[in-house]
């Protein structure tokens, strides 16, 4: 079961990290923007860039947290199964598994 989850998590998690980095980098106003900000003052189109950073950052963080929650749930369930299956093997029941 986990073999299905692992690719999803393995590929998405670094993407999330990259996304945060990219988002941070992009949300910085570039030099022309800064000059624009000085010249145009409050009317610069980059004036609210920090909101974009927070918003995209929130989306990445939110998705990452949920993926992490799914992964820890999967780990916990997998551990439980291993534990229960080994204890089942240890006690011969003579019952057939369906």
């Amino acid at each position, binding site marked *: 079961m986990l073999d299905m989850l692992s690719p*999803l998590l393995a590929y998405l998690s670094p993407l999330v990290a990259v996304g945060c980095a990219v988002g941070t980098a992009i949300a910085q106003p570039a030099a022309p923007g800064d000059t624009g900000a000085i010249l145009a003052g409050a009317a*610069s*189109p*980059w004036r*609210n860039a920090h909101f974009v950073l927070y918003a995209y950052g929130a989306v990445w963080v939110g998705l990452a947290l*949920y993926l992490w929650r799914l992964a820890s749930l999967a780990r916990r369930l997998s551990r439980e*199964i291993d534990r*229960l299956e080994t204890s*089942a093997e240890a006690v011969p029941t003579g019952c057939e598994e369906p």
Partner: protein
Amino acid sequence: MNGRTSRLWIAGTMLVIGGLVSSLYLIFIRTGLEETLGFSQKIFYFHVPCAWVTYLAFAVSGIASVAYLVRSSPRWDRIAHASLEVGTVFTTLVLVTGPLWAKPAWGVYWVWDARLTTTLILWLIEIAYLLLRVFVEEPGKAAKYCAVMGLLGVIDLPIIHYSVVLWRGIHPDPVVISRKGFGAGLPSEFLLTLMVSLATFTLLYVMLVGVRYRLEVVRERVNLLRQRALER
């Protein structure tokens, strides 16, 4: 877990990643700045898909809840639960990105307009559903109760929306781009970017629901094994 299914999973994952990368490229590099709002308008391209997924997830959960009440097949309950849980994540994201978009656009973080208020109430209903899942001890009962909650919620949501519209009065969208008139006021390059982002988020939703569904199957197996262990 056969080879074809895992190939499908990997394909799906690659598509989601590809979609996210393309969306980011389109959003930040290809699409120009919007006139009025400037850079902060870019939030739109993630906010709207999250909102779409929110309502899609809740609708799917509602339909699955009704199906479960009618058929009592555990598959429907798992779909309802998975869809609602994933939907709650996206609802939270909507409620976070929304005010961050609203502050530069409208000057305030929150307005009590119909869409936002309904989304907030939806979030509360989803949390109530999840609490019910956690706190009802018997899984069978939890499934039934949550299905009822899903049914009530999905019927109630249009009524809530309508009552808030009546309460607040219908005021025009204070922003150039209206989500209702989809693409009506949007330049074509904005629309394309939005579509790509929308498709990516929808696929992400489907993948997450699939994962969550599988985890539910595993959890049920664990409970069964645990029960057998106790019986011995």
